[in-house]
């Protein structure tokens, strides 16, 4: 019978994946706190993994997916409703969208004319029009979106999922974030806080501002620059022989045994991880599908293709960040000014790659068990931001905005929730960030109330004491 510490170490040797089903109930935890409830999935789940396409800065729902004729009709008028108590910047009057909308797909989901490719997969998308109740500054809103709290350091959603589901691939991390931002929470947005550190997201590409480019992205320390694989193998053989001798008289020390195994695991990973990020085997047709043959879509297309490769290899949580390639706004989607120019560039960079990703996942049979999530940390105000009318933009907006999901057990061609006639407040089926998290966990087979971790005297959850699954969107 393995003791607690042996169990811990036995299962720690994977890149991530502490919590294989059933094992965690035996307290494979760092010393200290007593039990944590966990051992999931709680029920059979449609989705096995999630790809989160994060739009840093706050895309404007009323210019992309949530048409508001009333804004056009009353363009320039003062808003006839009470504005939110806490605001970010000085705000102006109602501002019509510069773009026309049209219904797309069989389902007729409205999209603005900015989208040229996404309509092809409209019937796969499940629009969430009523996301709300987050922080009004980037930092707070990013932290809320990624960790559920805009004021405390909490484990990120990917690390909760890694902790909850464990790994299906022992040679890759459970949670990979591709070219993440170092801003607005930075590494804490994919960190594990008080969860064991093996659940933290592993960045492919250095976190940065501006973000690093996909073509340069690498896992760190995966290759020796001073020893050939053969030399390194011989060095390891020597090292391990000494280690094993040392262990002989310390047989109760499973941690030392685990460390010996971890060197072998590391050696194997040096082959597995480069293979996962090597695009040489992808056909030209596939690369074109993701827009990798065109300059403006090359970077994001490559990230999307990498995401598919990780999905194929059963990585649990894959994040892509669309952030920081604009010269005139700090964050990619943060169009306080230059709404028109900024959103045109932004959509053009992601439209084809995302459409390609969804088509590719579908044709490979991966879309059914991969949940794709698209969205930013908040939306943008239906009102203009006070300032130069020539380069007009919109402010941060936290009280009603749009995200969307695809695949992974959600209804395709479906619209959930709504904002009021101006796109200001979410009014129908309001979906708070906690509700969003509860729904994501549900789609992965996890009851958000059951996924807990005992820390500092109480059981913590991703959803704190809130969260309601949006049952209406389940396929």
């Amino acid at each position, binding site marked *: 019978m393995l003791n607690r510490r042996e169990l811990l170490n036995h299962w720690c040797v994977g890149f991530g994946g502490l919590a294989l089903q059933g094992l965690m109930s035996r307290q494979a935890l*760092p010393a200290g706190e007593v039990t944590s409830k966990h051992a999931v999935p709680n029920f059979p789940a449609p989705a096995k993994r999630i790809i989160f396409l994060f739009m840093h800065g706050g895309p404007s729902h009323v210019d992309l997916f949530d048409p508001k004729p009333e804004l056009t009709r009353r363009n320039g008028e003062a808003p006839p409703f009470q504005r939110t108590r806490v605001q970010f910047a000085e705000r102006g009057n109602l501002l019509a969208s510069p773009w026309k909308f049209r219904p797309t797909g069989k389902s007729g989901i409205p999209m603005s004319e900015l989208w040229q490719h996404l309509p092809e997969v409209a019937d796969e998308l499940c629009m969430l029009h009523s996301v709300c109740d987050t922080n009004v500054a980037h930092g707070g809103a990013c932290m809320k979106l990624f960790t559920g709290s*805009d004021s405390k350091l909490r484990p990120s959603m990917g690390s909760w999922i890694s902790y909850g589901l464990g790994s299906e691939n022992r040679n890759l991390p459970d949670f990979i974030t591709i070219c993440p931002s170092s*801003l607005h929470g930075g590494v804490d947005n994919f960190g594990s806080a008080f969860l064991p550190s093996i659940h933290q997201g592993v960045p492919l590409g250095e976190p940065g501002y501006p973000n*690093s480019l996909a073509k340069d992205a690498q896992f760190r320390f*995966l290759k020796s620059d001073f020893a050939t694989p053969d030399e390194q193998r011989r060095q390891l053989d020597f090292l391990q022989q000494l*280690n094993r001798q040392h262990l002989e008289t310390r047989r109760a020390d499973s941690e030392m045994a685990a460390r010996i195994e971890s060197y072998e695991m590391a050696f194997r990973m040096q082959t597995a991880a480069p293979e996962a990020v090597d695009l040489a085997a992808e056909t030209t047709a596939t690369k074109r599908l993701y827009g990798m043959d065109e300059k403006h879509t090359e970077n994001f297309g490559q990230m999307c293709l990498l995401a598919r490769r990780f999905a194929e290899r059963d990585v649990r949580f894959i994040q892509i960040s669309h952030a920081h390639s604009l010269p005139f706004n700090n964050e990619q989607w943060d169009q306080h000014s230059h709404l028109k120019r900024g959103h045109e560039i932004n959509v053009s960079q992601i439209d084809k790659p995302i459409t390609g990703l969804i088509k590719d996942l579908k044709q490979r049979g991966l879309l059914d068990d991969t949940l794709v999530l698209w969205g930013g940390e908040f939306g943008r105000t239906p009102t203009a931001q006070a300032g130069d009318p020539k380069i007009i933009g919109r402010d941060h907006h936290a009280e009603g905005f749009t995200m969307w999901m695809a695949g992974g057990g959600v209804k395709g061609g479906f619209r959930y929730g709504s904002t009021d006639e101006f796109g200001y407040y979410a009014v129908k089926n309001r979906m708070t960030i906690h509700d969003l998290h509860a729904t994501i966990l549900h789609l992965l087979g996890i009851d958000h109330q059951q996924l807990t971790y005992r820390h500092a005297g109480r059981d913590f959850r991703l959803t704190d004491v809130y969260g309601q699954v949006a049952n209406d969107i389940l396929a």
Partner: protein
Amino acid sequence: MVGPFKTRAFYWVLRGGISAFVLITALSVGLRGQLAETQDLEFFETKIRPVLIEHCFACHGADSGTPEANLRLDSLQGMRQGGDNGSVLGDRKETESLLVSALQYDAFEMPPSGKLPAAVVADFQAWIERGTPAPESFQLASPHGEAPKKPTIDWQQAGKHWAFQPIQKVTLPEVADPAWRQHPIDALIYAKLAQAGVQPVNEVDRHGLLRRVYLNLIGLPPTVEEIQDFINDDSPAAFGRVVESLLDSPRYGERWGRHWLDVVRYADSNGADENHPYPFAWRYRNYVIDAFNRDMPFDDFLVEQLAGDLLEQTEQESLNNRRLIATSFLALGIKIDAEQDPEKKRADIIDEQLDTMGRAFLGMTIGCARCHDHKFDPISTNDYYGLSGILRSTKLQNRPLESAETLSVAGELKSIQMQINQLGVRELGRIRTAAAMQTELYMEAATEVRDWQRNQAALKVEDRLSGVVSGDRLQAVGAVLDRSEFQSMGVWLDAESFQRGEAAIDRENYGKGIGIVSDQGGGNTWVEFDFDLPESGIYQVEFRYAAENARPGKLSINGLLVNDDSMAKVTGGWFPDKQIWMVEGRYQFQKGPNTLRFEVSPNMSHLDEIIVAWVEPAVKADASQKVASGVQQTPEKIAQAFGVDRAALLAWAELLRSGNTDEPPTELARQLSESGGPLSSVEKAEAYFPITILNSLKELRLKQQALSQRLQELNQPQVMAVADDEISDAVVLVRGNHRNPGAVVPRRFLTIVAGEEQASFPTGQSGRLELARAITDGKNPLTARVIANRIWRWHFGRGLVESTDNFGLKGALPTHPELLDFLAAYLIENDWSIKVLQRLIVSSRVYQLDGRPSENQIEQDPENQLYGRWPSRRMEAEVLRDSLLKVAGKLELETKGATVSEVTTANPSPGNLAENRAYYEGANCRSVFLPIVRTNVFRFYGLFDFPNPAAPKGNRDSTTVPTQSLFLLNSHWVRQLANEWSQKIESTATTETKRVERLYLSGLGRMPSAQEVSLALGFIRQEPDAWPSLCHSILMLNEFLYIE
């Protein structure tokens, strides 16, 4: 039954005096209401009440004890009054009704058992739209509802928890084995081992012991020489001497201070949303290291951290400073700087402080009681807000440090101010005396002066200008004339029109609307102006400028320096509203082209315009620069003619000009010095002071200005600290929501420790000092137990209470309660000396056992719960880094002041992240001195379980993941250190066997076996880059990585 509409109509009829229309309308509504009423009540009884009874009453009814959220739904009154979140009925509109919103699972999710069918929700909405009709029986809350709230905490029961019991006096158990009864710790440990039938192993060999105690006490492996010294010293006191030298070493505080920094979530930036540096945090880090090195009594250490600023100020500025620095503890936490809601920000910061203080000092998770009474521990919401009031009365504030220079400059400044005051007062006294002596004579003379002044005011432009030159002191033409009036009197220049120069033009900020010239931010600043004059002669030079501080420069005319204290006055500010005309002096100019040059270094006042005015062509070129001769100088002449004091005469003239001259002279003389009179204050009278006094005053004021500037510099903030704020008790934030204030709770300490009846906190101070005293009071059993347990944890890798930061009901139970109490009591008895406690621990046999388990132990106690052997464990990140550097000979022990300014914090790009990495990998100081940037922690730290500095962590994790192995295998940094080490080895040992021995001794602290030597030699013979590769391998061995 009387419906509401009917009642109202009836009332109106009785009142009378209303229009028939209103009456009819009201009555008709009343009739309709009567008809509808029956339907309404039927609706309520069939659609509403049954649902309320079935789904709501259990938690929100009369029999629910304290109703959930203090909300009663069993009467209209209860609904209207609402609960923690206000009325649930709203104003007939769906959007404002919390009841409907909750049923829709929007604002809340009620009932929690599941969302009710849409039709039911629609019924409630309709009911509210109808105006919530309900029978009388549902109008008022039943009296049960008035019952007092039942407390959720059973204090008596909770008090029985082990951690709240007083620290027990421990009777040492009888131990038969002589090796185990010498030392109290051994006796207490052995008793449990014997009870469980576990035989402890033997003591570790001396090589192993030395390496262990070095790594444990100072975080560095012993050198070859230190090993040899110890091995060669076979006296029984040898180990004790080593322990003493390690405890005395400055390295000790660098190791043990770091443990405390884990507990207080130390970092050099705010982290979270945006990452801003904490530039002064390092002082606290060094304070902690110093406190451990000096073995500051632990109770004092805590008091200083909570309330160092409130302790009595001493003569010793270094002590005062140290105590101020200690309060950084409260300020160091993670903060959301960009939070747009200031109330939320304040509440979040206080919560962070309370949570940290509770876990770090008391092992109590106080933060859990922010929204409701603690679910497990006896900490009530009132306790939380009682403590919260103390911190709400405290503000975060970066503060200056005291220094000898600060004190001397402040003293000097005070004395200069006194001199200025004395000089003014003395001169005023002299003038008053003079003015009061010959009142009639003064009146007569003053009348002449006044008349002359009146004539002056009536003069034309030219005549007014003669006033400019006639005055006792120079007057600016620019202040008297418009530019249009000035015309051909000379030249009037815009400062921006300079022909040559190195200066900046500002039309936006300091020059908004006017345009000014100033410096470019430093260096030498100069401007030159060329202009023509129609005649040669003496001209008055005037500058219009603004200056908050004096910035004197040099004025040259046609290449000659004429004034080296030019543009030197202070006008009261830098902005256009403080622009003032000033006369610089009168100088000789030539006919035709002239050049005026102004030069200053480094900063220049904000110059707007320049005038060169031909005020007195008659003045001779050789005349004194500042005195215009040949003009009236009337007041002077009058004073001479009457033989009176000039200053007193001018004061008299002022009185006559503005006052009533009909009063008798004695009365007028009295008015001179009365409130508002020209001699009523030094300030007013200064206008009449003779030039000699004015010069002295000017000199003193320049000194004063320089001193206060220096004092301002000295008073720049240098320490991250706190100060008392407005003192107030805190308001409970219901459910933790800062938008939902409840009752006021007096400031106080935890009820479970200090009881219900506590002395009230001072109204003039935040109460931090009282709180600190309560925490360190001998009657509080938590503090001593918590720190004694931490010290044990840091020696043995596991606490006697495994959950070091949580001694509550959900924390672990002590494995050795008597030992814990023995250590806690020992600490208190020895004046809270950490080092005394450590001497005791390290000298025990338990501390000196071998780490290898016996067969019996593998069976009986595989996890070593009973300490029958040394609990081996991996080095912490810092110890590993320092050991690698030390072995490679790279560690620099003298670098201690590393600050966060050396790395990038906010918005790091891949580029400056690479720079940070280069900084960290290039730094050779001890790890404790590396800046900790939250959200961008040094990668090496992150890999090896450096705790996230967001919250206290007394119990570091020790994970084993392949990324650590990858780092050790492939990082250039590790390989480079291996290279350096191998060079050292190769240079100090001659034969290959000796090299291998040296390698083992310096790396692992012991000699290799013959088999190990032959393995190593076999390895180097087969490898190309043999020695570096061998050294690299040794650094990756478990034996190197573990404190055994």
